[in-house]
């Protein structure tokens, strides 16, 4: 069983952390992953930086731009990660936009992920129908879970369809927004969390966008299996050293 699927079976609320690979410094990737695992988070999303990240707000954009300036490429990231499974057992997901993956070659990319021990991919601009028609078998061949997003505007039929083709979790975007733009959840979002929870989908949901502290983590996970933090962690990394990562995780979980 895939590490993500195993993790989802645990009887607890999950904290997943996103960071942009190559930020703040090119070679920080492995140290950040190790410290995150040690700090008690449940999953890690490694951001493959892109020049034009359409779904991301200013914080993640700026970290991607910096990572690219630092020299991050797909090949460099794979090299940094090549021995990661010797020391780290936490589920690892690569999150990136489709173009860099397309240029690497989708099959070559997936194959490399399997070799390294990556468990899943989140590719926000890979359309569901294109995935289904062209790439699903490749992902399955290499044991990768593809994670789809839903938003408050996603129709019930489409959510059901997404649920039917997912085999890990559903990334529930908390509000109609780019990353890092919300502060606290209002009634509309809570109602949306409830509405999705009531659908009793086969895949658990993990909430992303707008989670930045213990309060929002607790609110989101009242209705969902877990929550993802990106921008708040990147802001933290800009101002703190790695040995303080456990303080960050503790501030969310406790």
């Amino acid at each position, binding site marked *: 069983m895939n590490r993500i699927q195993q993790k989802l079976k645990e009887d607890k609320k999950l904290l997943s952390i996103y960071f942009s690979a190559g930020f703040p410094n090119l070679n920080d990737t492995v140290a950040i992953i190790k410290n995150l695992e040690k700090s008690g988070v449940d999953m890690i999303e490694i951001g493959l930086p892109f020049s034009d990240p*359409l779904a991301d707000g200013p914080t993640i954009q700026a970290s991607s731009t910096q990572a690219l300036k630092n020299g991050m490429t797909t090949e460099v990231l794979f090299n940094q990660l090549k021995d990661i499974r010797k020391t780290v057992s936490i589920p690892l997901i690569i999150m990136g936009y489709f173009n860099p993956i397309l240029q690497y070659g989708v099959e070559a990319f997936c194959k490399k992920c399997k070799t390294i021990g990556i468990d899943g991919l989140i590719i926000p601009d890979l359309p569901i129908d294109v995935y289904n028609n062209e790439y699903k078998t490749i992902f399955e061949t290499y044991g990768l879970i593809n994670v789809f997003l839903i938003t408050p505007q996603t129709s019930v039929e489409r959510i059901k369809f997404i649920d039917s083709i997912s085999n890990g979790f559903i990334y529930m975007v908390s509000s*109609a927004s780019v990353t890092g733009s919300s502060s606290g959840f209002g009634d509309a979002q809570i109602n949306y969390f409830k509405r999705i929870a009531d659908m009793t989908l086969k895949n658990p949901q993990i909430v992303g966008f707008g989670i930045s502290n213990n309060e929002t983590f607790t609110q989101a996970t009242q209705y969902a299996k877990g929550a993802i933090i990106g921008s708040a962690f990147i802001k933290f990394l800009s101002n703190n050293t790695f040995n303080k990562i456990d303080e960050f995780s503790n501030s969310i979980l406790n």
Partner: protein
Amino acid sequence: MTKNMNYNINNNGYYGEFGGAYIPEMLYPNVEELRQNYLKIMAEPSFKAEFDQLLKDYVGRPSPLYFAKRLSEKYTTKIYLKREDLNHTGAHKINNTIGQILMAQRLGKTRIIAETGAGQHGVATATVCALMGLECIVYMGEIDIARQAPNVARMKMLGAEVRPALSGSRTLKDATNEAIRDWINNPVNTHYIIGSVVGPHPYPDMVARFQAIVSEEIQWQLKDKEGTDKPDYVVACVGGGSNAAGAFYHYLNDTDVKLIAVEAAGKGIHSGQSAATSALGFEGIIHGSKTLLMQTNDGQITEPYSISAGLDYPGVGPMHAHLYKSGRAKFMSITDSEAMTAGLELSQLEGIIPAIESSHALAILNQKAFKTNDIVVINLSGRGDKDLQNYIDYFKL
């Protein structure tokens, strides 16, 4: 090239292998709403009537098809200029913004966003928003705001808010990213008026259809003047490619008519400062569309360069990617200096100061020999008023 090929969009939103809608889920409801409705709305008699009436009374259409006598004598061929430069706001851009504002109204949208590079599309969008009394926000790269001050002032005077794009390279590509992010953040009340035949399906097709009036008019105007509705060549410049899409549209599947798309070579195709996407780009995804784009081997989108801000885009619309790949259109490229020279030449031979974008199309007359009785229609997509400072600096006028 296959004789019976169809160069229009297919039912899945692709031109050959190019196109599609590579968008995050957050944009799906908006784009899907548009996809499901655009053809239906465009076919409504009331829509057509209002669109036609505004093009006539407000834009000033039909734009003349002008036989350029002295230019024709110099190049010993028959050259017609399609005078999109005479449209209200000075370019073809208004054809599309009129169409899209009517579309937005019928979709019940109350807030309009747009991206702009040089400011021409921004001005055309601010204009139609003023006309219809809709809120208008135009994203423009911080660097472009500084170098296109007159158009920024025009947009403000028309009541639009101009928001600087501060990310990335702070030019057109980043303004487009910011507009897309705005749309993600405002999914219900907002319509995004994209300015070219780029972006996710159905935008490339919708914008091409609104610009198709250009070739529709060329057909009957040429029939009047030459007794045939078919020129031997249609020539247009391509940045994203909206004026070319309009000029080519009704000739796409008529291979008797040769199509020439002219890209900006900047300081030379291999100078590292160029926007000649067909020569320098390869297949990838930009702004939601699979097309040809300038990028690193690693898939990061690179910065184009041209003296002409309207051609300064790192991709081409998927229709053009298909026209290039299939060989249906011939792609040529023109450097800054060749374009500037052609702009000066048209000014002095015909008394028409062209936009630098359009000067690129004119400049192929020096690269390609046409036969004496060839009919060559060049789309004069915009007027040169906005470029005066550039011409002044370049020629030390």
